[in-house]
């Protein structure tokens, strides 16, 4: 039973992370990964030069660890890996990587889904899209809140 959580200040490679995660398995049958990539265009189609994520001291990492621990407690998973970028992220680069491992696939799927929903609404980041002529703060959408709400029973 282990959760490994990292706040990354530089670009990371999701394939490498999946490789390392898989390498560390102890016989689990199911591995799910999610990677979120920075988009090159805003919802209105305007080009985005960079996504900038701000974090706050130890609180951001602690919020990520709390979410991972919740997932470990709630789902029948044996391992999870969470990596989240902070700072300036170019379009196409990975923002977040989540991997989960379990004996049977349902738990791995649900745990990864849960972790992402929680990261979207509760992880301590503030993000903005920057283009040459504007910057725009991004908050969780009503869809993100509805997704997170699914896990409340």
């Amino acid at each position: 039973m282990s959760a490994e959580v990292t706040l990354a200040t530089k670009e990371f490679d999701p394939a490498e992370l999946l490789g390392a995660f898989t390498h560390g398995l102890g016989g689990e049958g199911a591995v799910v990964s999610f990677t979120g990539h920075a988009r090159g265009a805003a919802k209105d189609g305007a080009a985005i030069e960079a996504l900038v994520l701000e974090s706050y001291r130890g609180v951001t990492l602690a919020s990520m660890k709390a979410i991972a621990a919740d997932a470990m407690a709630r789902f029948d998973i044996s391992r999870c890996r969470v990596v989240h970028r902070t700072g300036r992220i170019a379009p196409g680069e990975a923002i977040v990587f989540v991997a989960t491992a379990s004996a049977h696939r349902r738990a791995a799927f649900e745990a990864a889904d849960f972790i992402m929903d929680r990261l979207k609404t509760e992880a301590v980041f503030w993000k903005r899209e920057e283009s040459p002529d504007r910057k725009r703060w991004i908050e969780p959408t009503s869809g993100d809140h509805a997704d997170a709400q699914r896990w409340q029973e």
Partner: protein
Amino acid sequence: MLEIELCGRLADVGGALAQIAIPENGCSVAELFGLIAQQHPALAHPLVSGRVRACVNETIVTPDARVMAGDEVALFPPVSGG
């Protein structure tokens, strides 16, 4: 004086740091919000939205928590990772 970090979009409104005069024996977070709104009127609007949380010494606290000079205080607008 208490130095308060303004996170995310709040820094657009009030700069990265706000200096707030507070009572010598401290005050509650709810009272602090009132003092900030008085002393930095540009921050009044986001603070009354009910969506800003206070972080004191790296812990997100409720409005009845107390703050003192020397505490590390930050204001968090709605967060979003991923």
